[in-house]
């Protein structure tokens, strides 16, 4: 009870509530505008939040993170263009429903499913809090090292079909994080005697380059598009009632979202894929999937909205970000010397609880806002994409330059912007670079810190938690190799069958 009162005391301040309101409402718009997304917005706003108190800055960013997927469903359903990447699956069933004249029903269901996913996730987070407070202190250097290693392994294997590229990019992230003075003996690494490399390459500069500037460049070089959507007539409350019919799918999908959000390196896409597959296989109308199935829509939206709150679990309990957005938030913690990890749960539980309650409030705020303002949002999102590129370019300047007023940082960010554009055009993932940078740094520090107690490599896994995590790492690798062999055999068999048919 004391923790709850302390949390409310932290939260019920005008600056925190305004930050939450701006973040939540702003996040809906940012999510609804195709080509922006939460990652771009958070990357730009990140340095601006450094001057704010940690709780104010974090609620602002949490607001954007938690609400952007709500907004992203609007263009996904009405104009077949996902507002954020994670709303791509929503277009499969949302847009066909709009074409059938059921746009209002689809939007209403999407909002309700997103709300349910968000709320279930926050409730799980609150219920897990005492367990996490007990388990987190059991994580020493070796366990955190193993958990970060698991994050790297998962982020590589989560990119099915692109595992080699993801591995290459994750290692690239680890490498760029190691440039400059190393943190223990302060020797120079890969500075080539250049003074601008001695202080290393800043994570935020890389984030802004890869997410914000690359997006600006991409919008500027591609053809101009102006999203257009017909307004929606009537109220949007019916979805809350209709969701009851799909409660099983919504519940399971939210469960997948919570589970996948908690595992570092996995995230929304896997949660959506598993939920959608489950909904498809267990449906009485599987033929409707991809052609406007309300169940498919509910599965996709519940799963993706359950992830943000769950993704806070490894971040807050262990200091390990599971994906790019929580990696960005980690830097806000570090700037304010609030170090996420076991100590945070022991010493600042009210702060942690305040973040949980903020997540709960933002879901309610966003739902109410969307019920009344969807048509208004539709007008605002009709920004020509190349013009949007100009705006993002100018906003990116604020993000990079305000860090330390360095033109070199801006040049590095521009370089990463072009690199990010190439990766996006080649359809290669950016997230492994960021996680490689963050988790690589954590792994190095923890590995070197644990050296005093480690005599042989086996000492790494002589404690139960590190042994379990190591077991999971081995299992993930074995399962992946098995999957690749199976896929190869299936492919080979298909070719042989095609050859036999031709004969």
């Amino acid at each position: 009870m004391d923790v709850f009162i302390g949390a409310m005391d932290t939260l019920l301040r005008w600056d925190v509530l305004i930050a939450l309101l701006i973040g939540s409402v702003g996040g809906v718009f940012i999510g609804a505008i195709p080509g922006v997304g939460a990652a771009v917005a958070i990357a730009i706003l990140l340095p601006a939040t450094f001057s704010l108190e940690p709780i104010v800055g974090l609620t602002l960013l949490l607001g954007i993170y938690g609400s952007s997927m709500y907004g992203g469903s609007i263009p996904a359903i009405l104009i077949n263009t996902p507002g954020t990447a994670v709303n791509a699956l929503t277009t499969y069933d949302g847009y066909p429903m709009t074409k059938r004249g059921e746009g209002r029903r689809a939007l209403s269901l999407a909002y309700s499913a997103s709300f349910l996913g968000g709320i279930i996730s926050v409730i799980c987070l609150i219920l897990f809090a005492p367990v996490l407070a007990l388990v987190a202190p059991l994580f020493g250097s070796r366990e955190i090292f193993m958990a970060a290693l698991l994050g790297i392994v998962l982020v590589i294997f989560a990119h099915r079909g692109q595992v080699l590229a993801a591995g290459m990019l994750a290692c690239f992230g680890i490498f760029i994080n190691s440039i400059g003075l190393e943190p223990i003996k302060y020797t120079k690494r890969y500075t080539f005697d250049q003074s601008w490399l001695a202080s290393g390459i800043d994570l935020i500069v890389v984030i802004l380059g890869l997410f914000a500037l690359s997006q600006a460049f991409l919008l500027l070089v591609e053809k101009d598009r102006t999203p257009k959507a017909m307004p929606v007539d009537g109220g949007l409350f019916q979805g809350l009632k209709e969701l009851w019919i799909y409660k099983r799918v919504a519940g399971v999908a939210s469960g997948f979202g919570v589970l996948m959000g908690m595992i570092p390196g996995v995230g929304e896409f896997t949660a959506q894929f598993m939920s959608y597959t489950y909904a498809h296989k267990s449906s009485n109308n599987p033929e409707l999937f991809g052609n406007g199935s309300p169940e498919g829509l509910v599965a996709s939206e519940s799963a993706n909205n359950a992830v943000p709150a769950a993704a806070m679990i490894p971040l807050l309990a262990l200091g390990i970000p599971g994906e790019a957005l929580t990696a960005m938030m980690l830097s806000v913690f570090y700037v304010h010397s609030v170090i996420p990890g076991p100590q945070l749960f022991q010493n600042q539980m009210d702060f942690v609880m305040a973040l949980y309650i903020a997540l709960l409030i933002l879901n309610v705020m966003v739902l109410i806002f969307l019920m009344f303002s969807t048509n208004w949002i539709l007008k605002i999102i009709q920004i020509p994409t190349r013009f949007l590129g100009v705006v993002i370019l100018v906003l990116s300047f604020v993000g990079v330059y305000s860090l330390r007023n360095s033109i070199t940082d801006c040049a590095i960010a521009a370089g990463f912007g072009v690199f990010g554009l190439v990766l996006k055009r080649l359809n290669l993932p950016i997230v492994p670079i960021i996680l490689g940078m963050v988790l690589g740094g954590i792994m190095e520090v923890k590995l070197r810190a644990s050296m005093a107690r480690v005599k042989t490599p086996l000492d790494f896994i002589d404690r139960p938690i590190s042994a379990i995590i190591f077991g999971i790492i081995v299992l993930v690798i074995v399962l992946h190799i098995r999957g690749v062999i199976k896929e190869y055999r299936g492919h080979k068999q298909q070719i042989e069958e095609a050859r036999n048919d031709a004969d």
Partner: protein
Amino acid sequence: MRDVAVRFQYRDLLLSQIDEQVKWLSRGKIFAQPGFWPAVSLVGMTFFALLHLIGSALSPRIHGRMAEVALWLRSLEYAAWFLLYVWLVPIVGYLPMTLIFMPLLSFRIGYRSKKMLLLSAFIGFLIVLVFKSFLEVKIPGGQLYEYLPDAMRSFMLLNF
């Protein structure tokens, strides 16, 4: 295929520099050496890049690659615009430079109507107002502000 090969060679080059670019201490375990993590990352990159290279060599050739490379190169123009803006802000000042830059770049990308040019300048003004005046992000005043009258100069330095 070619870009993968270039990337592979670049990484190979970085790996060949490891003895010069990191320090190997005479005492201490291998895991605690300052050079351990750069070595792990570069060996990892080389390993994955090598497999990727083999995979690319065995895959069917994708046509139209040069058009794609031309699009990548086109982005360099906007990187140059960005760097020009970055270079000029400390000289001209954040507000005046943004008010010039946004309509100029909008004009360059094809928005030639008066309405769009004014809109871009207005959005530029809003950005400066939100970030510099309200959120007080650290962007220094322009050198040209020094030529303004005293009262105006301190107002501009503080807010824009």
